[in-house]
């Protein structure tokens, strides 16, 4: 795929296709970044969905007094125990809270000094829903400073947002594919026009359309493949840089979103896919245009 084969058409001297590898490099770069975003969002959503889909959380604000805090906690827990829609509840330890918050605040969290609220994670009986505002009122009626979160509102909003982004990314990928094929078709058509004389001679000598198409297709493949290698290498490097900086500010969950095969796929699979797509686009274009010659 790297080397041009010997061709009867002076395709290597064509100026009209010089921009092709660069354009393809740019498009593939865009694709790699888009893929990265798409995959990251997918895994974030599925994580959150499974961890907080069927749960609500209760936050008790600290009174700056451990004994008072504990009394309040026991009161709330007994209220929860009475509720038949609740399958399970659990007080989240400080360490767990730290782990939850750390990805968002990073190492900076350690240096923060403010009273942590008490968190109670509540799991509902399968298929039930609890009105968070009602529960909140029930608890605060006991004179307790509380906030009840059923996650659904903001999770739903977040998922909607992610879905929108996913559509945008898919549209970018669709556009890239469309632009790739369109560019190859355009370059091939111009090439046929430029080399009309030579193609005519080849026909008179007895060349089949396939023979001519093969040369255009081979060239389109080599140029696209080279461009795609450049684009996917730069794109993957860019992803690494992004991950590196996210890690540096403490987002240690990002790295595991990209398994090893993902990079291999980008670095090798994508250029091969692009090369083969360009080849068949050029091939089809030549065969179609030549078939219209009487």
């Amino acid at each position: 795929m790297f080397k041009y084969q010997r061709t009867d058409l002076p395709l290597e001297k064509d100026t009209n296709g010089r921009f092709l590898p660069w354009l393809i490099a740019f498009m593939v770069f865009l694709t790699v970044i888009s893929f990265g975003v798409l995959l990251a969002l997918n895994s974030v959503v599925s994580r959150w969905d499974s961890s907080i889909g069927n749960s609500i959380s209760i936050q008790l604000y600290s009174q700056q007094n451990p004994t008072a805090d504990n009394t309040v906690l026991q009161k709330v827990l007994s209220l929860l125990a009475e509720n038949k829609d609740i399958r399970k509840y659990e007080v989240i330890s400080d360490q767990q809270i730290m782990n939850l918050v750390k990805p968002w605040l990073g190492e900076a969290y350690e240096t923060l000094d403010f009273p942590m609220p008490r968190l109670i994670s509540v799991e509902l009986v399968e298929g039930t829903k609890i009105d968070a505002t009602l529960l909140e009122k029930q608890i605060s009626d006991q004179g307790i400073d509380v906030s009840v979160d059923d996650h659904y509102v903001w999770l739903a909003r977040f998922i909607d947002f992610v879905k929108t982004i996913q559509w945008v990314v898919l549209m970018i990928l669709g556009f890239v594919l469309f632009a790739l094929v369109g560019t190859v078709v355009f370059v091939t058509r111009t090439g046929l026009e430029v080399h009309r004389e030579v193609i005519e001679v080849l026909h008179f000598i007895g060349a089949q359309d396939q023979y001519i198409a093969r040369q255009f297709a081979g060239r389109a493949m080599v140029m696209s493949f080279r461009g795609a290698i450049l684009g996917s290498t730069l794109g993957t490097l860019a992803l690494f840089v992004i991950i590196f900086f996210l890690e540096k500010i403490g987002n240690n969950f990002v790295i595991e979103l990209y398994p090893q095969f993902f990079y291999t796929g980008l670095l090798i699979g994508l250029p091969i896919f692009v090369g083969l797509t360009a080849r068949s686009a050029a091939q089809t274009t030549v065969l179609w245009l030549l078939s219209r010659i009487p």
Partner: protein
Amino acid sequence: MLGNNPIVQFENVGLRYGVGPEVLKDVSFALDAGSFHFLVGDSGAGKSSLLKLIYLALRPSRGLISLFGNDIVTTPRSMLPSIRRKIGVVFQEFRLLEHLSAFDNVALPLRVSEAEENLVQKHVLELLEWVGLENHIRARPPTLSGGQQQRLAIARAIIARPRVLLADEPTGNVDDHMAFRLMHLFEELNRLGTTIIIATHNMSLVKKLGNTFLRLENGNLKIIASGNKENSESSG
């Protein structure tokens, strides 16, 4: 040889370019396999046009053309390459590929028909030697003289051993000595069974070789036997 089956046959063929006047009118003739013909006529008489009809560069405006027994109107496009491979052409303006070496130009018909590369090497080198271009194997056509280009064009036309050889003014750019050498080359090919049609202005050559010839005049074709005994085959 194919006996009575003509290898090239024209019946009432007319040709016009666009909306212009008819360049060829009611041209009818049949060439037997293994025959040798000159095609003569003044400049602009339509010699090149007639040859273009045979090598399928042009379609007739009317009439019937059959090559090797195939009616070319009903022959599907996918069959044309196999017919064209049986026809070698020396174009009047050579039409050598300028970006390819002499060697690659001559090799083209073999490569187009997917011949094995070691056979290509052998045959092409032999033929280049035969036409006296063994010292210009790597040369590109624009660096060759007119006569050298002409010999290169001839070599390309005959490398794949076509059954029919069409040569459009193949002696136009060479001196008389080379012209006769080339004519002997054509005669030798003819002896090996190739049907040959040579379009030329050079009447002295025609007279010397004394073959029957085809004369184009006002778009009509006359077949003239050697010794100038005219017998009109078609008139308009």
